[in-house]
């Protein structure tokens, strides 16, 4: 191999970086909250200066005040409980069915061929347009809410599970088979754990969708639940309250996601 004159010259700029490439470990956990606080302050002050009416977009302090009132006088806790029950009902239903089906589809070419077409066809149908049908079949109570949420979050779980299963290292499967694993054991002791990171990112998406679906369904038919409250506050133009409930939803979503991430990290501590 001949020496390349152009590229073999010492390039001053690269040298120092070569010795220290590991990024310095800053203490980053505070970056997020700080950014959020800055954002909120800009929001508050901006609206005060621009004198935008509360109707359009209420200020954070007004929202916080409304939220406080909702808790102390509005009995929002009951609604929160109802909504959480429906969210988790739908989420766990979809997670269970989605993971099992995803693993079976990822490991069986036949089953994949059969189910794939249904998934491809059902997935893009707006679930909200199925509300009338679902109401006929499941009534307009909790079961309906749970089924609708499950329908919404089933697809990310299935799709990500299949992806995870497909990415599983063939070598691991061979090794397990060599050690006498049955096809069933391979599925649950090799393919499934290998797919866990991917499944988790599916579950993360799913939980978000579950929240959205339940709230939307509650807005349509429920008497209790955060969605129903949202509908109600809208009816009397309590914009502050509307945003307070949205904030509650956001915080709820944030907390659930963080909790999920913590579980994910605990399970995934073998990585790096």
């Amino acid at each position: 191999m001949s020496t390349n004159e152009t590229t073999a010259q010492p390039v001053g700029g690269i040298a120092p970086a070569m010795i220290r490439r590991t990024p310095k470990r800053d203490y980053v956990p505070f970056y997020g909250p700080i950014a959020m606080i800055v954002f909120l302050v800009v929001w508050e002050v901006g609206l005060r200066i621009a004198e935008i009416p509360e109707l359009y977009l209420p200020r954070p302090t007004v929202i916080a005040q409304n939220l406080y009132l909702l808790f102390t006088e509005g009995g929002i806790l009951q609604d929160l409980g109802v909504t959480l029950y429906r969210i988790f009902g739908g989420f766990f239903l979809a997670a269970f069915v989605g993971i099992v089906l995803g693993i079976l589809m990822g490991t069986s070419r036949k089953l994949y061929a059969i189910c794939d077409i249904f998934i491809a066809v059902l997935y893009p149908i707006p679930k909200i347009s199925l509300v009338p049908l679902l109401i006929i079949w499941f009534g307009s109570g909790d079961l309906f809410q749970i089924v609708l949420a499950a329908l919404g979050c089933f697809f990310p779980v299935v799709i990500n599970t299949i992806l995870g299963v497909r990415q599983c290292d063939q070598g691991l499967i061979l090794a397990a088979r060599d050690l006498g694993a049955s096809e069933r054991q391979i599925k649950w002791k090799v393919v499934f754990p290998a797919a866990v990171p991917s499944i988790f990112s599916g579950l993360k998406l799913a939980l978000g969708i579950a929240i959205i679906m339940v709230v939307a369904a509650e807005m349509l038919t429920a008497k209790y639940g955060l969605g129903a409250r949202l509908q109600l506050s809208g009816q009397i133009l309590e914009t502050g309250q509307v945003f307070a409930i949205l904030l509650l939803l956001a915080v709820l979503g944030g907390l659930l996601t963080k909790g999920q991430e913590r579980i994910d990290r605990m399970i995934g501590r073998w990585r790096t």
Partner: protein
Amino acid sequence: QGAFDAPAKLKVGIVPYISSGPFMVAQAKGYFKKLNLEVESEIFQDGGLAIPSLVGGALDVIVSTCNAGLFNTIAKGAQFRLFTDRGRESVGMGSQAMMVNKELYEQGFTDVSGYKLMKGKKIGISVRGSISQLLHTKALQRAGLTPEDCEWQWGVDTKSAPTLLAANQIGLANIPIPLSHAVEAKGAGKIATWSDDIMPDVQLAGWAAKETFLTEQRSVAVRYAMVHLQSVRDFVDAATNGNPEIVKIIAEATRLPAEVIETARPRWTGYALDGLPNEASVMEQAKFWTDAGMVTRMLDASEIINTDIVKEAAQRLSDANPFI
């Protein structure tokens, strides 16, 4: 068929608004139980969502809002009838405010004649084929305009209308009580006129049940209508005298603050004391939607309305009122 007051269960689809007041009163005061009816209710934000459940048999009685969908469903062969009144825009008591933005209000859109100012302006309605579209169209025609003279913005539901009015994104939208008062209080828009100024006594909705239900379970239907008539009396009385018991019942059932219910009281939905649907108004609406091409054929009144049940109920009530 057994005795007239044999125990019966029925499932009812309702909407959670003040206009459901009589039903709420009936439930709270135990009128249904008195007639041996066990009623289970399901809530729908939009009455249209309940029609498939009625036709499919999951519900026995529903609130059926007058709109193109109702007529078209019947035109396509669904066998159900409106068997009592379920709210109308009685004169002076219209429940829909026609709200305009400040600009239009200042230009003089302060009563129904103001529609003439709407040329080239935007009207916000929630969905096509709804009674709001009908109301606006009638008012425009009366002011010498056609619907094509304005721009129509769909998807403006009651929650987004106030903001859009305040932002001058639309000029006109109809907003129901009690929201309309809140909107005016917050300065988002002005009440220019009311639905009853445009179409006095227009029928808003009726209690609907399948033809088979009305014949096979006639006694249940009649008892239901009796409860309806009795609770309508309580409701209409309360609308004039502000009976705090009734106000409290409605506040609890709608989950709205009692003050809000009280403020809206003069314009709680109007009800016919005899329970009879306004046939003329219903047929006018049917014709309108048929002409608009949204209903496949013009219906006969007898295909939409059944008056037997409520007449028998009124008779029985005047013979012996079981609620007093």
